[in-house]
């Protein structure tokens, strides 16, 4: 089992320059500590216009800063929006390669297509075609990274032959993932040989089904890249405290705040009738859970908050379902004071991480191991 941090970078009103800087600095301080404590990944989302929920619109800059202050932790775009109005594919290839070089080969590239009208409408993107453009982008990226020259004529973008520079530090290229929120996207991930970067907070039963289907289908995948990145990551909240009650209370507060902010987002389906957004993704579950920011209702099972023993039980359950990595959200709207976030990370690293230090065979493979597998 691997552990990571997952950043939306949620910033409460009023948005003074100092507050935004403070929150960013808090995140960087957490990442630096996580690196020292042995966490495996730090992921950062790409979101635009999502007030309070996420001010992380330039994750490549945040991740570069993370890479510059750390030594080992791997940095993940979680995710790059693969829609032409948001990001040109050439720029994605160039920026990710640069980040991979600067981080010394520690980059993971998550891909996705955006789920909110707030974002898609803001860029005047057509929701009907985001899945198709994502599919084109993920098939082009490995070639743009690996081929000396590249040209392309597709449905959503094209370019004449050029040399895209620089090339990534990792060879053949960084591991690729896809964000999985809507039901069925785990199949898209498996069929393309991509890692499944779960961003929803589904319960055990639903996750088990998804993971099982992912594992089954990826066996016969046609990878878009040079290797198969068979990994399943899920997202969770983390608040670890010596006292279980204190840990649960703060963890619930964190979860409720995050969920309530998330439910304020305008999902694409809510306003734009489209066959491309049949599912509301993670929102229905969040709306059931998010009765209010101060609610005390039971949240989705398997949350990583409480004392170390409770969190160990939750993580073991996820591990038994086949999860390779859990990425933790540490804060939302700064409801957890920074000193408590840091203490929670330290306690988790001291009491929980050692229990899971041994990697299950055949699951959480490193990029190099995966490359080797591909070479075989």
């Amino acid at each position, binding site marked *: 089992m691997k552990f990571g941090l997952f950043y939306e970078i949620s910033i409460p009103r009023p948005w003074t320059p100092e507050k935004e800087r403070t929150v960013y600095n808090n995140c960087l301080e957490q990442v630096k500590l996580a690196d020292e404590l042995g966490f495996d990944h730090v992921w950062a989302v790409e979101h635009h216009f999502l007030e309070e929920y996420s001010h992380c619109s330039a994750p490549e800059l945040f991740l570069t800063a993370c890479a510059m202050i750390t030594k080992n932790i791997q940095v993940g775009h979680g995710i790059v929006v693969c829609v032409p109005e948001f990001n040109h594919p050439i720029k994605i290839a160039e920026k990710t390669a640069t980040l991979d070089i600067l981080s010394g080969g520690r980059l993971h590239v998550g891909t996705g297509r955006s789920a909110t009208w707030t974002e898609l409408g803001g860029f005047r993107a057509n929701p009907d075609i985001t899945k198709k453009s994502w599919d084109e982008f993920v098939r082009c990226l490995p070639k743009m990274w690996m081929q000396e020259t590249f040209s392309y004529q597709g449905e959503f973008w094209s370019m004449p032959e050029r040399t895209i520079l620089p090339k990534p530090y990792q060879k053949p290229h960084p591991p690729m993932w896809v964000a999985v929120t809507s039901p069925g996207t785990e199949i898209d991930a498996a069929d393309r040989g991509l890692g499944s970067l779960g961003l929803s907070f589904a319960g055990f039963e639903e996750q088990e089904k998804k993971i099982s289907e992912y594992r089954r289908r990826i066996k016969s995948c046609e990878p878009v890249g040079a290797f198969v990145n068979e990994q399943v990551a899920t997202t969770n909240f983390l608040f670890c405290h010596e006292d279980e009650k204190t840990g649960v209370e703060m963890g619930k507060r964190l979860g409720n705040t995050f969920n309530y902010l998330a439910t304020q987002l305008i999902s694409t389906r809510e*306003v734009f009738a489209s066959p491309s957004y049949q599912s509301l993704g993670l929102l229905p579950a969040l709306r059931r859970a998010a009765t209010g920011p101060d609610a005390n209702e039971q949240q989705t099972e398997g949350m990583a908050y409480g004392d170390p023993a409770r969190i160990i039980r939750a993580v073991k359950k996820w591990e038994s379902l086949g999860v390779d990595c859990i990425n933790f959200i540490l804060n939302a709207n700064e409801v957890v004071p920074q000193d408590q976030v840091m203490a929670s990370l330290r306690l988790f690293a001291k009491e929980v991480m050692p229990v899971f230090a041994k990697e299950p065979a055949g699951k959480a493979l490193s990029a190099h191991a995966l490359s080797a597998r591909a070479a075989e």
Partner: protein
Amino acid sequence: MPLYGTLDITANAKALPTLANLDTEAWTLPKAEMLQLLIEVPRSTTDGLLPKAMHPALPSYVILAVTKYSESPVGPFNLAVLRLGSRAGAHPRGFLLGAVASTEAAAKELRGRWGLLVEAGEVKFLRRHDRVMGTVAKAGKTILDCALIDPQPVAGTDVQYINWVTAANAPLDGQTQPMLIQVDPKYTFYKAERGKPQVNAFDAAAWNAGAITLADPIVGTCCTVDTDLPRIRFVMDPLKPVFQGTRRIRESRADE
């Protein structure tokens, strides 16, 4: 935390519809044809239109709908409504700003049963091969002229209708008082089409919509559905956040 509306509906309670009770019987409304246009509006123009209990949708948008009800307990009628996209707690809702019904009987019943701020007027629902049109006039003046251009078939499952919230006076705990009422129809789709919204005339003041100006069209749909106006299940304190001030009036239906 999320922004809240600033409208205090208790400050002008006399202007609100008044319900005799919260025991409204449901209406079954088969084979209704619903033209619905969603359009973004500048956030500054929605200030003061949303009750304090609710959160604004970001970006701000309105829902313009013109519906042809071919059967109802008060006979056939057309209804045009303007709703403001918003949130009741965690849930997407359309707060009703204004409505016009094509018959006096429908207007009276909709006001008195579900708290729709509705008046009688001329409401037309017109279908052409290249568009579906809705027009509304009050006292001879056109207050809405809109259309769904070039409708193309989609699946009913592609369309999501969000529930309504109305503001009205109603008896609760022995006292008639202003409150927010959730109106949550069900829909069974027979036909669904999608197209581009077009608005040729819109008189915001006639819809109690303050200074709202229509800015960026999102999408338009026209659907044939079996629907209803159900019994009232939830009411909300207009001044408290919805997650603190919601009261369940009766249990949900068996299919919920």
